């Protein structure tokens, strides 16, 4: 017997009441290996205004390219204390900020490696179903061969690649509409 998935509904404006308890701006606890970055950006609506009632969730592999999940059957180490999940709410200007390590390459379709990336869910008032997107890293030769990034029209690929803002600081904005609209996925 098969069922249809329950319908999605918006998180509404009071999402923080239910979701803030699990806010995780430090995705990689002390002692986790990897190159550390602070990633900050803004969630911006079609008027160019910051979305102050949004929430971003991040899911990622560790520096070896291994997910803390039973379906990742790669023979790679995983550190104690590594989950790979982040959750941050946007501030009054739509800004968000989290710290993490750059993940290693994980296998893609047909086993070809994917470029290092974070998978991201975006929730907000005014959105009936969350959006899915990805953040890739700058100065990364593997981006050119990434099997998901290459499905994105060339002109829009840059929306998924963070910009370098300092030695260990990256900027990545989520733009909902307009000329710089972030590429979103429907998996």
């Amino acid at each position: 017997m098969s069922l249809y998935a329950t319908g999605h509904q918006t998180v509404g404006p009071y999402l923080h009441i239910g979701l803030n308890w699990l806010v995780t701006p430090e995705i990689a606890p002390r002692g986790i290996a990897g190159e550390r970055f602070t990633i900050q950006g803004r969630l911006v609506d079609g008027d160019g205004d910051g979305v102050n009632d949004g929430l971003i969730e991040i899911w990622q592999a560790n520096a070896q390219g291994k997910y803390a999940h039973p379906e990742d059957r790669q023979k790679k180490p995983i550190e104690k204390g590594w989950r790979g999940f982040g959750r941050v709410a946007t501030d009054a200007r739509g800004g968000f900020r989290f710290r993490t390590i750059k993940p290693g390459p994980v296998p893609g379709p047909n086993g070809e490696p994917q470029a290092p990336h974070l998978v991201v869910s975006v929730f907000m008032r005014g959105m009936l179903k969350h959006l899915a997107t990805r953040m890739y890293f700058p100065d990364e030769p593997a981006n050119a061969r990434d099997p998901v990034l290459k499905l994105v029209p060339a002109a829009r690929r840059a929306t998924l690649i963070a910009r370098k803002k300092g030695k260990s600081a990256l900027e990545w904005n989520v733009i909902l509409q307009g000329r710089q609209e972030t590429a979103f996925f429907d998996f």
Partner: protein
Amino acid sequence: MKPAQTRYRRPHPGTQPDYNYPPYASTQKRCPTQPLIVPPQTLSEITGPIFGHDDIKPTDNDLTRQHNGEPIGERIIVSGRVLDENSRPVPHTLVEIWQANAAGRYPHKTDQHNAPLDPNFSGAGRTMTDAEGRYRFITIRPGEYPWRNHYNAWRPAHIHFSLFGPAFLTRMVTQMYFPGDPLLPYDPMYNCIANEAARARLIGVFDWENTIPEQALGYRFDIVLRGREETPMEKMP
């Protein structure tokens, strides 16, 4: 290396909302305007965060016991099962809820509705499903409240539900409504699901079995997360 499992199903037509839904005015400046890109499902999407009992307190599912006094309102038990589209239970997965108090007010800085706050009610709960996918919350029936989407707009009573399931692809946030609510036909959130049967599944069912005599009415709300395609090769349990 090919994924060992089949892919997650695409949504059945009409059972999920569109991003652009004009009756819900706030979608207009927030929905993507470019077509979404449909990539293959990779290891990154068929995995997802796993939570456990260490992440929550055993009493986090009782919203009536979070303060010194009891909240005002009608006590209710909201319980059900989390299943996948193949009718299999989703065990040991995190369920988060939040809701207004009995007067229709949220303890939130942006909620300016002129209805009283309840010092004994915060309106947030969480729990893990058991081995059979069951969950249970004790709370109070939330009140309806006005919003500014259109003239004389009121949200029907509802409880927000957030679920993870086993994968990034099974992440879902939904709302549970109450049977017989006269506001449902006017509510853009409820009506954003085109398929009538799928829409009706957002309404909890009065649950006599889980009603506690002289204590609390029961409501049953079963939730279905995305499931995988089934193939003849797949081993059945």
